[in-house]
């Protein structure tokens, strides 16, 4: 199994940390992982993206031009990455703030109302965990218990009290991801 993912959105949406938690979850189940962020001038204009690869085998290139899954959280990222999903692949996006919806017919497109659901849960910061839940429902590449272990590893101990909230957010995302 090899899953090649691009996660892209605004800086501050938790794009990089969502990728980090996913990568840590892979480590928790003995998989190989890589996490490569766009850094420096690429991030000017407030966009952030990260390539995450989770695999049973040694990972070759950490940078890619085509992905099994794209998780897209703003319009700029939609413009840039819709075309990079492999045929038969998956595109998951939050329709909030998207004006031009994806049009490809050769991929599976899902929506997750991450921002809305996080607001309903009373904490907009868990937005990225709702989206992660939606992704894991569609692509269950890591077990939930390993995600929780991954969260513990990537969060400082003083934030461990927030893990149940994060778990709820993931579960919420799993329930509300919709095939378009």
């Amino acid at each position, binding site marked *: 199994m090899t899953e090649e993912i691009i996660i892209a959105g605004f800086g501050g949406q938790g794009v990089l940390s969502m990728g980090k938690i996913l*990568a840590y979850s892979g480590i928790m189940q003995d998989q190989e992982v890589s*996490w*490569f962020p766009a850094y420096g001038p690429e991030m000017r204009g407030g966009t952030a993206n990260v390539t995450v690869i989770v695999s049973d085998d040694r990972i070759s290139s950490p*940078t*890619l031009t085509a992905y099994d899954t794209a998780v897209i959280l703003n319009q700029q990222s939609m413009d840039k990455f819709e075309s990079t999903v492999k045929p038969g692949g998956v595109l998951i996006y939050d329709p909030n703030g998207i004006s031009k919806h994806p049009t490809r017919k050769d991929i599976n497109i899902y929506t997750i109302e991450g921002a809305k659901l996080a607001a309903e849960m009373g904490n907009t910061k868990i937005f990225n965990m709702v989206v992660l839940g939606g992704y894991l429902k569609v692509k269950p590449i890591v077990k939930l218990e390993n995600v929780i272990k991954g969260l513990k590893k990537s969060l400082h101990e003083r934030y461990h009290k927030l893990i149940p909230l994060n778990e709820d957010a993931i579960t919420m995302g799993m329930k509300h991801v919709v095939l378009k």
Partner: protein
Amino acid sequence: MGELRLMKGNEALAEAAVRAGSDGYFGYPITPQSEVIEYLMAEKPFERTGMVVLQAESEVAAINMLYGGGGTGKKVMTSSSSPGISLMQEGLSYMAGAEIPCIVANIVRGGPGLGDIQPAQSDYFQSVKGGGHGDYRLPVLAPASVQEMSDFVPISYDLAFKYRTPVLIVSDGLIGQMMEKVELFDQMPRITDKEINEKYPWATNGKPKGKERRILTSLDLDPHKLEKHNFHLQDKYKQIEANEVRYELIDCDDAEYIIVAYGSSSRISQKAIQLARAEGIKVGILRLITLWPFPKKPIDELVIKGIKGFLAVEMSAGQMVEDVKLTVRERTKVEHFGRYGGVIHSPEEVLEALKTKIIGG
């Protein structure tokens, strides 16, 4: 099994510096390697092992702090990125002359000049052909993963002290900034003053009673004596060439074509050969682990085996390819491919270059 962590290449390098028993890190921040000193300052190894971490006032100061620290037989290292490494070349030449051990890690970015902060491999010439003045060579290790950013630190110290030479770790912004799983090695003890006195009779750590004054210098105004010193250095470099070549062959057994690459380019090329093999093209990779000494023998053996062509893939305008050509000596085709100035080539571009420059060219 050691502790598993998800770390950036830069962080793994920093943690490995502590665990390898370094006595000091001296550096000046520069993107894309500032995480090294950030990590060390946050981790406070001065509380863990007593290791000194100091932000120097400049790269020139940092390299001369290594001269001082390494000269006393201590394990010292620095890291920087291309423009900062250029500033360190004078110090490196002096240390090569005075035979002072240390590690210098270069997390290469696009150049020339201030360039940009994106990954590049355009410091190959500077790393393996000198960089500073005079007849000297430095062992150069090129990690291709976050794991190797950690593993190559103790290996570099071993080389540095075995041969009394600065050792370069040459990586780039891609390996420095990416996170991967890394298995950390256990904490090694720092060397004691007693051990230094026993092992390093050259170390300038105070004049021992009844013994001669120790001097570490690269200056000798008598040309005959300096030539003799140079003979000694050249003998040492021959030993390093004979004993310290490191490389990895990937899918070369049945290969008709070979990609020669190191660091990030070797990772990207691994994806490229997967794509190529799916199309029935038999291609393997010779991955350089030491850039100097250069793995001449395996290339020679591949030529004799009947390889139809070598593609040197590097994020530069064509530097390593010159050493491949020197080794192949026109017995078969050698071409270069690479994006540069901070642009990372894609696996598809590498495959396309293989097809047009080597197979069809």
